[in-house]
């Protein structure tokens, strides 16, 4: 086969491929367990740029939060969330709380208020990410507060979903609830695959900033 004809052929194919490719649009979907977790670069409450890639080799937990959401309050008022955060920190896991509410929406706080909330609630996240344009929420497809994501040491999304198996805002639902986060972390620690890598998150809707 002559080189010219091959080139012509390949160019022709590429042109057709482009034509067909552009006419088929694929919707971007949420981050999927088993796939690479979307990297991010977001400012935290200390004005520091937090990148997922900075934590390569460590397990990272993302917690979408909105302090006024009744479902979030259930977990903080009972100190369940704080206990979980402290236990995870002991295991060397990086806990990042994420606030995606834009200004004017419930849950939106500035850095000072976010720090105060951590102090008054005796919470123990490694850091709090401020995402008022909801870009991180879009990248992960966060739907509710709380919505939990666990990223393993290799940067793969190991878990996405609910914090536990009791989708309720009432405090009594905490008794006997199974913590999906604890389960997944224990399995990762044991070198096992996460048995329930994706569950349906429950809670208040994440207040998204309009796309600018």
């Amino acid at each position, binding site marked *: 086969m002559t080189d010219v004809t091959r080139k012509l052929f390949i160019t022709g*194919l590429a042109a057709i491929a482009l034509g067909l490719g552009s006419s088929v649009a694929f919707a971007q979907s949420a981050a999927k367990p088993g796939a690479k977790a979307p990297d991010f670069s977001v400012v935290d409450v200390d004005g520091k740029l937090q990148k997922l890639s900075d934590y390569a080799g460590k397990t990272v937990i993302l917690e979408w939060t909105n302090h006024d959401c009744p479902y979030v309050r259930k977990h903080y008022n009972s100190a369940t969330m704080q206990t979980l955060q402290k236990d995870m920190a002991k295991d060397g896991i990086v806990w990042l709380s994420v606030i995606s509410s834009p200004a004017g929406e419930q849950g939106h706080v500035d850095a000072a208020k976010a720090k105060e909330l951590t102090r008054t609630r005796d919470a123990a996240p490694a850091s709090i990410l401020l995402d008022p344009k909801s870009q991180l929420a879009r990248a992960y497809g966060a739907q509710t507060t709380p919505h939990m994501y666990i990223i393993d040491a290799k940067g793969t999304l190991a878990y996405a979903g609910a914090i536990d198996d009791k989708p309720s805002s009432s405090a009594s639902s905490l008794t006997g609830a199974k913590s999906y986060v604890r389960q997944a972390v224990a399995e990762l620690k044991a070198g096992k695959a996460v048995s329930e890598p994706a569950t349906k998150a429950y809670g208040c809707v994440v207040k998204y900033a309009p796309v600018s």
Partner: protein
Amino acid sequence: MIATSLPRRTAFRLLQRATMALALLAPAPLLAAESAPVTSARVTATLLSSRDAVAPGERFQVALTQKLAPGWHSYWQNPGDSGEATKIDWTLPEGVSAGAIQWPTPKAIRVEPLVNFGFEDHVLLPVEISVPANAKPGETLTLSAKATWLVCEKICIPEEGAFTLDLPIAATGAIDAAAQARIDDAIAALPKPAGFTAKLTAKGEDKLALTLSGLPAGASDVRFFPVLDTLIEHAAEQPLANGALTLARSTAFKVGTPTTEGVLIFAEGGAKRALALSAEVEPALLQAVAAPEQAPAKVTLPPPPAEDLTLLLALVFAFAGGLILNLMPCVLPVLFIKALGFAQVAQASRGEVRRQGLLFLAGVLATFFVLASLVIALGAGWGFQLQSPPLVILLAVLMTLIGFNLIGAFEIGGRLQGVGDGLASRGGPVGAFMTGALAVVVATPCTAPFMGAAMGYALTQPPAAALSIFMALALGFAAPVVALSFAPGLLRLLPKPGRWMIILKQAFAFPMFATAIWLVWVATMQAGADGALAALVAILVAGFALWLIGVTRGSGRGLRAVAAAAALLLVGAASAFVIESATPSARPTAQAGTDAPGVWSPARVAELQAQGKPVFVNFTAAWCITCLANDRVALSRQEVKDAFAKLGVAYLKADWTNRNAEIAATLAEYGRAGVPLYLVYPGSKGAQAEVLPQLLTPETVVSAAQRAAGKEVKTATAR
């Protein structure tokens, strides 16, 4: 006194009846047909009864009513992306039972980019109450309900209310007309039984197809609300095509029952309709959940990522693939000369040109039909014909002979005119038909990219659908020549027949020779040096045999017979030699070199992943032209090699030049019927591979390698 003579019990009973009679006559407000309201700034809720008095053994309806402030909503049984369904906890007397909430048709309430399923303005949640047959008239039935609901605008408030209804038990019940009417309206508006069962099937890796056999033809604005919250991505579009909705599979996908329920809404002739729908779940989708228990290796195996193609799209791709095949250097000469033949004949008769065009089409269709039937019946991948060295050699001989014929070294007459003179279209009907067949045969080595996807899809379909895809390919392939035969205007654009035609015809011999060289090389890759020898001997013998026949053409009958017999004998002996010596060699055919790829096996991939190494797998074959082109333009480029080295990517090659069941199985797993297939596995145990396009560029490969190695710095801001 009479009164004293009556037994006390009888007197009591009389009194009871009198009270009851009074109660029945009394105005409604005295009777508790609706509970006291529970109110907040957002919701006013009551428990409403359709009965003022209930009879033993009867069933009747009550309803939890919610009046919602503007902008606020409460939730359906599946709340959608967030929220929580309203719940009712009943406290009932012994023997009394309450059914489940009969959920009204929900509304999709958008909270961009998410969606909630729920109710606005006003909603009644009907519940059926059963009164036991042994309920005693005269006593009171107390229905106590504690309801909890979440009410959201953008912010959400959990609310609850305790409701009590005291209903007298009477020999005959008493309907509260107003309440009954309200509840009846709500029940009349409930989704109606669909009357047909839908089918839920997997559609590629991340989609589902909901086939709605009973959907009215004129239905529009169709939307499915699943009861199960782990079925679909609620906010995704639900396009309707061919009576099936395409749904985005939930990232938390899990369905544990062989049937799943939901509500289907649509508009029909301006009226809105809602059906209560039950869907049969494809067993494979159930397994998708059952699997992630044991063996860690199994857990993260990708779901079968079949090409996401509908039949219609596959047909379009197949047709396009067929068109592209016309450009292949081994096919173009055959077709071009066919077209020139038209130009000559056209001067004589347009009808004849048209007839030949149709015969050509018939030849193409018939040959494709035979090939497709073989592929489908044998379950072999496309390109299987090139996995047999003798067939490759036969093609090499054919290409060489066509080449010599084009250059004018010899004419082929008589019955073989389809191969030779037929190209110039003087060969009549058999010639035209044979040209079609020949064109298909010489085109088979060249699997154009779109054919790959379409054929992969074809082989996962029932035979009828698969065959129609191959026929679409055949139509695309024949289209240019047929179009030419029906549009003599196009022919007039060609210069007048003359010397230039002879020169062009000769020039076209060279691509044929090039193709023959390539096929000899393929045979060498398959069967080693013996393969090369067999191919060259076959070409020699074929040439000699034809020469024998040609040189004795003008001679007497006896001599011609002897020459024909000798030719036949030679060809027979050569065929035996080819089949004998050109056997696939067992040794791996991966080419040696400084950065030679490793040999692929699933175990090797798993091993490398476990070591934390990303893996690039090149599924290829020596006879696959697209594969070779990709090798040249991307994989063997220095920048790609450098990137692989820098990122620690292991490069494995799965060579399908010869038959290999393991490779075929992996191709099938990715919805492909043939090579090329490029997979990039991240360097973590069991992580899913990314499938690269069938046409590679160095950039595609490098960026995929970076993603797999986790080196790509993509900020959330960039998205």
